[in-house]
């Protein structure tokens, strides 16, 4: 039986089956239940086997634990590293991306492959080499060395990001501003920054997220001296203190959740997500 193409397009504009209620419930269970489990563990003062739910709720003790110097300092270090990685990684990725979009197609293709390497290179393999380089440079075992180590994968991610963003950016606007007498600095402040502000904010968040969850590079280059939230979480798990570990895990999840919702909202506004 032959059917008219317009009718087919209307009927099969999406060849997938629409999301059913059981599928949505299943996805909600799979995606969110581990986070709820962590919240349950963090607020349960005593949770002895075989109790299915914690017998005592211990929010007060939990808050005291979260306010302790260990977690507060670790949170401060993580926030500082994430912010610095976001800012420096964005600056680097933007400059690299601008240089690359003006280059020939073969250079851009080569750059995309090259920038992908630090993104997927195992952090431990990367860290073993970077650790020695940081020690030689006199920044091993310190915050600067860890920051430089976090910047390695972040620079790869953000170069790839800006290759995509600037590939779709109309450079002729800047050329027109220059023709009208704007200096390079004026052109950057008055044309480039306002136009790309949302993309730059997204890049800052992406760079911060790359640093936020890093454990292997922090341990290797920081030598156990730089104590970030993931490092403390691992220490809690190893010490058998799952409750404080779960509290740290929840704190560790909040920032990426906020960042991702901001990224999604931005993408929807620009039409990148339908």
């Amino acid at each position, binding site marked *: 039986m032959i059917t008219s*193409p317009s009718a*087919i397009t209307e009927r*099969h*504009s*999406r*060849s*997938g089956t*629409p*999301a059913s209620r059981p*599928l*949505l419930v299943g*996805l*909600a269970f799979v*995606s*969110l239940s*581990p986070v709820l*489990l962590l919240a349950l563990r963090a607020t349960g003062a005593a949770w002895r*086997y*075989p*109790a*299915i739910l914690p017998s005592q709720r211990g929010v007060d003790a939990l808050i005291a634990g979260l306010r302790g110097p260990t977690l507060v300092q670790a949170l401060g270090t993580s926030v500082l590293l994430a912010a610095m990685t976001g800012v420096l990684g964005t600056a680097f990725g933007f400059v*690299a991306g601008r240089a*690359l979009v*003006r*280059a*020939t197609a073969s*250079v851009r293709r*080569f750059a995309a492959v090259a920038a*992908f*390497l*630090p*993104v*997927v*290179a*195992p*952090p*431990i*393999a*990367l*860290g*073993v*080499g*970077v*650790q*020695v380089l940081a020690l030689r440079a006199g920044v091993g075992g310190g915050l600067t060395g860890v920051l430089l180590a976090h910047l*390695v994968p972040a*620079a*790869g991610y953000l170069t790839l990001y800006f290759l995509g963003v600037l590939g779709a950016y109309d450079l002729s606007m800047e050329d027109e501003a220059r023709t009208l007498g704007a200096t390079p600095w004026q052109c950057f402040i008055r044309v480039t920054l306002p136009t790309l502000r949302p993309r730059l904010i997204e890049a800052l968040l992406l760079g911060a997220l790359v640093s936020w969850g890093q*454990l292997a590079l922090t341990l*290797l280059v920081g030598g156990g001296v730089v104590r970030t939230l993931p490092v403390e*979480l*691992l220490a809690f*798990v190893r010490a058998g203190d799952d409750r404080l570990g779960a509290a740290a*895990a*929840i704190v560790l*999840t909040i920032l*990426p*959740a906020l960042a*991702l919702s901001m990224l*999604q909202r931005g993408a929807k506004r620009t039409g990148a997500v339908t």
Partner: protein
Amino acid sequence: MRSRDGVGYVAVALVVAPVVAGGLYSAAASFGLAGAGATGFSVARISAVLTDPSTWRSVMWTLCIAGTATIIATVAAMLVGVRVQGSRVGQWLATASLAVPHIAASLAALTLLGQSGLLSRLAFAAGLTSQPADFPAMVYDRRGVALIVAFAWKEFPFLVLTAVAVLATRNAHLTEVAHTHGADARAVMRRITMPLLWRGIAPAVIAAFAYLIGQYEMAVVLAPSDPLPLSVLTYERAVDSNLAHRGEAHVLGFLALLLTGALVLWHERSRRVAERTLL
């Protein structure tokens, strides 16, 4: 154009410089030319690592666990991707776990799948077990069940995002032609949508597999002590109090970088095939 290419090359060089410098240092240290306990050019370190059965147990175990988790996550992402492509709520739910850092997800897996975890407690409540030891070991176990589940859980949202993006850009004309020739929805799904989706998603699958091979945060919490995952083995060698073992970390790190380099090339080839197919 040539000077612009020059600036582009400088940018690329800066991005890969730490990886190349670290790789070269690891290569030099592998041959005894650098690093703690360097003795001059020698293949002793490489030989020690490559002839150690624990190295190959670690490599094979890591590849099996990463491969199994990648297959599970890919199949799930393809099946879910086609069903949530028109649903914002569905896409949000499928990708919500992206926000959970790997180390936090590993603690959730420990709390859920450990022998005194929530599943074990539910099994006790249902009368299936009478003590934690009766519940099958999934954490710190050689079969690596907890690690596979945790890996798949974390890679699933990334692959769903890719699947939805691929489905949104696919050539709808093929589907129309198939329907015109009388193909039903199931045939279109099996013969057109899924093959096209697979070609589009393949580069992301390779990237996920490469990432899982080097994953440390989940492996250090959930993996057994024998065989050790490659990332944990490399870390333990790197911080070993015996300086001779630290050189072995460079050999393992260099091997991992070579493996990653091969996967990056495979990824690029796969990406080009996907671009040609989907456009």
